[in-house]
């Protein structure tokens, strides 16, 4: 199911989302990107511009989220990482009006693992992102489908 285009898309998206919420250095080319620019050609430039902060999908980051949310008002998310030197764990919800849901600054006394209830306005990709002290950006992503529940009235 995975192809290079998808990988690039998710990676670029995380980068753009992070830039938007102020967690990555604001890079002129990234900021200037129109939303429609999430395709490979333009994104190669974005990659270069992001340098070490290039977001990488990684199995060192885990996102636990339901396949389907019966109600978008409360969706339990679990985000954790086994990557070394992690300083922050972020939860991003792509289609929410406020993309950044929560950010956790971790210390050696706490597991880099959190559960939290968040709101989702609609079906969306959700990203768990780990930022390391050596400026790596690692992420895991999953689509959560938000359904219309009840009698709809």
């Amino acid at each position, binding site marked *: 199911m995975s192809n290079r285009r998808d990988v690039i898309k998710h990676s670029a998206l995380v980068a753009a989302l992070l830039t938007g919420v102020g967690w990555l250095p604001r890079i002129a080319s990234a900021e200037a990107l129109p939303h429609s620019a999430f395709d490979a050609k333009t994104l190669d430039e974005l990659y270069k511009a992001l340098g070490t902060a290039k977001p990488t999908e990684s199995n060192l980051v885990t996102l636990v989220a339901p396949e389907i949310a019966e109600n978008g008002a409360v969706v339990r998310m679990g985000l954790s990482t086994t990557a070394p030197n992690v300083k922050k764990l972020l939860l991003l919800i792509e289609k929410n009006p406020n993309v950044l*849901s929560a950010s956790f600054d971790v210390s050696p006394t706490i597991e880099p693992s959190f559960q939290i209830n968040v709101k989702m306005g609609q079906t969306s990709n959700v990203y768990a992102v780990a930022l390391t002290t050596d400026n790596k950006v690692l992420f895991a992503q999953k689509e959560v489908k938000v359904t219309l529940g009840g009698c709809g009235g």
Partner: protein
Amino acid sequence: MPDPMRIRAQAQGGNAVVRVLMAHEMETGQRKDASGKIIPAWYITEVTALLNGTPVMTAQWGPSVSKNPFMQFTLKGAKAGDKVTIQWQDNHGDKRSDDAVVS
């Protein structure tokens, strides 16, 4: 004065699992009231956890954290009798701090 939190801290294999419920509206600033006026955003912006008085975690939250927020985390090396403190602050400047003892 905001309502107290519910904090449960349980020792588990050399660590302590902490579950927290906070009483808060977490208004997004996106919703409208019956008359069509935007309901202003009102949400917890910062959460801090302390173990025996020492800060171990700070979290920044946006308005998309659910109403009456739930959060769970694990403190390394915490044992029965240790004191866990949770503090929050919202965008109105309201604050709340509650303690629990690891059991």
